[in-house]
C-alpha cells in the first residue's frame, strides 16, 4: 500500500450566504487517497463534488476540518503555491481555461508562473503537448480546435507544471462521445505512464467503473466508498440518491431478483465488465437448457 497523498479530516464547507440557515456543501468528509491511485467521484448535481475539488487545492478554504496535500495543510497562505504546483485541475468548459491565443503559449502559462527557466519551459511544453498527442497544433489558436482538442490542451497546460495529481472536474461533460473517448484515453495513458494520481469527477458511470476506487457523495456527505465492484453492487442505494448504475450492474441486479438464478449460485454480485457479463450469461443460458 502506498502512502496517503491526499487526506481530508472531518472536512466541512459552507458557502457564505446572506440567508440565516446554514447549508453544508460538504459535511464531515474524511478521506485518504493514496499516491498513484485512480479515484472516481460520483454524485448528483449539487452534491458537493466541485466544492471538494476546489477545497483540494486551496481555491476554497475549509469551514471546518483539514485538507492535507502531500503533508501540506491548505489553510496557511504560504503553502498554497506548493499545493497548486502538486495538484492540477482540469475543468468542464475547455474554453474558459485557456489563457493565450496560441496553443503552446497557453501550455507555457503554468510553468511560467512557477518561474522556471525558459529552456526548461520549452522542453516541458513540447513534452506535454506530445503526451496529449497535440504536438502538431502548437501554433494554432484555441478557437480553431474542437472541444476535445481544447480539453487536451488544457490537460497539457496542467501536465507542463509536472503535478503529482490531476483533478478532472467533469472534464468530459461538454464533449461528444468521440471527444470523451479521446480524453478518457489520455487520462488512462497519463496515469499509467507517469504514475499520476487521478481524481475523476464524473456523471458517466462507465468512466467510474474503470477506476481503482469510487467515492459517492450525496448532499455533501460520503455515502459509498470502495472498489467499483463494491460500489456498483449497491444498486438500490445508488438509485435512491438519484444515480444511475452501469448497465452491466443493473442487469446483474435484476438477475439477482430471480429465484432460479439466485439458487444457481452463479452470481456473486458486483460490477462486471462486458466480457464477464457475457460469459456469465452464456453459463446461465447453458444451465437453463
Amino acid at each position, binding site marked *: 500500500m502506498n502512502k496517503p497523498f491526499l487526506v481530508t479530516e472531518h472536512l466541512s464547507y459552507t458557502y457564505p450566504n446572506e440567508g440565516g440557515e446554514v447549508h453544508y456543501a460538504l459535511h464531515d468528509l474524511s478521506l485518504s487517497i493514496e499516491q498513484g491511485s485512480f479515484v472516481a467521484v460520483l454524485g448528483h448535481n449539487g452534491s458537493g463534488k466541485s466544492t471538494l475539488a476546489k477545497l483540494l487545492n486551496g481555491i476554497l478554504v475549509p469551514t471546518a476540518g483539514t485538507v492535507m496535500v502531500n503533508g501540506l495543510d491548505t489553510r496557511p497562505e504560504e503553502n498554497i503555491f506548493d499545493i497548486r504546483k502538486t495538484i492540477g485541475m482540469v475543468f468542464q468548459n475547455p474554453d474558459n481555461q485557456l*489563457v493565450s491565443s496560441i496553443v503552446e*503559449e497557453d501550455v507555457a502559462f503554468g510553468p511560467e508562473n512557477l518561474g522556471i527557466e*525558459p529552456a526548461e519551459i520549452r522542453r516541458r511544453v513540447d513534452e506535454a503537448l506530445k503526451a496529449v498527442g497535440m504536438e502538431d497544433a502548437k501554433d494554432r489558436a484555441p478557437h480553431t480546435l474542437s472541444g476535445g482538442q481544447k480539453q487536451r490542451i488544457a490537460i497539457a497546460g496542467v501536465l507542463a507544471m509536472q503535478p503529482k495529481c490531476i483533478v478532472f472536474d467533469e472534464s468530459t461533460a461538454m464533449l461528444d462521445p468521440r471527444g470523451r473517448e479521446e480524453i478518457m484515453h489520455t487520462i488512462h495513458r497519463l496515469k499509467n505512464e507517469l504514475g499520476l494520481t487521478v481524481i475523476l469527477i464524473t456523471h458517466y458511470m462507465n468512466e467510474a467503473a474503470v477506476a481503482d476506487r469510487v467515492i459517492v457523495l450525496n448532499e455533501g456527505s460520503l455515502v459509498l466508498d470502495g472498489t467499483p465492484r463494491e460500489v456498483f453492487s449497491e444498486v438500490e442505494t445508488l438509485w435512491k440518491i438519484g444515480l444511475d448504475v452501469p448497465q452491466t450492474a443493473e442487469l446483474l441486479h435484476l438477475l439477482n431478483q430471480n429465484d432460479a438464478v439466485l439458487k444457481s449460485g452463479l452470481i456473486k454480485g458486483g460490477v462486471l465488465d462486458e466480457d464477464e457479463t457475457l460469459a456469465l450469461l452464456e453459463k446461465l443460458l447453458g444451465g437453463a437448457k
Partner: protein
Amino acid sequence: MLKDITLGQYFPGKSLLHTLDARVKLVCALVYIVAVFLCFSTLSYAALLLLTLGLILLSKISVKVILKGLKPVVFIATFTAIINLFWVQGTTPLFVLGPITVYPEGVAGAIFMLIRIVSLVIGSTLLLTYTTSPMALTDAMERLLSPLKLIKVPVHEFAMMMTIALRFVPTLVTETDKIICAQKARGADFESGNLIQRAKALIPVLIPLFVSAFRRADELAVAMECRCYRGGEGRTRMKSLHTRPSDFATLLFFLGAAVGLFFLNTLSNALWLY
C-alpha cells in the same frame, strides 16, 4: 456574419518580420504611423506605398489575407475619399457635374486619403498582429512600459488583460452569432426599423452575452489561480525577447524612412508636384 473579423489574428511564420523582436516591431509601428501622417505630397505618398508593399513582401503573408483584413475599413476609406473628391477646392475645375465641381486637387486628395488609410491599416496590422504572436506583443508592451511600474502603474495586469481580451475575441464573436440566431428563432427582428429600434433589438443579445462573459471571467480566474498565477511577480517567460543586429537595423531603417518621407514633401514641392 461577424466571422470575418481578422483583427488580432496571428499567422505563424518564419519571415524576417516574424523573427524581429516584438518590442522593435511595436516601436517601428509607432514610427510608421507617424510617418504616414508626415506625407503631404505625391512623392512621399508614392514612397509610402512602396514601403507598405515592401512590408507585405517581407512578411510573406498572402495578399488575399491582407485584403480581407482591409474589409472593416472599406466603408470609411471610400467615404473619406469621396468627401475629399468633392470638397477639395482648386483653381481649374477638372469637370462639372450639375452642382458638383471636381478639381484635380480633389482627385489627388481622394487618392492620397485612400493610400493613407490603407497603408495605416496594412502597416500596423502587419507589424503588430499578423506577424507577432499576441503573447509576444503584450510581453513587448509590458517590457516597454515597465519603467511606469515605478510610479505604480499596473503594467503587468494591463498586459495580461490584453492577452485575455485577444484570446476571447473569437470566442465571444462566435457566441454573439449564436445568441443572435437564437433570438431570431424566437422572432427577434434585427434588420428593420430605425436606428433606435435596431439598437433596442440588440438588448436581448447583449444581456445574455454579458452574463456569459462574466461567468467565463469567473471560471477563467479560478483556472488561472489553479495554474499558480499570482501576478507578474516571479514569472518567467518561455519566449524571452532578444534584440539582434537585424532589429537595430530595422529600427534605423524605419526612422530613416520617416525622415525620408518628410523630406520628400519638400522635394515634391520644389518639383512643382502636388
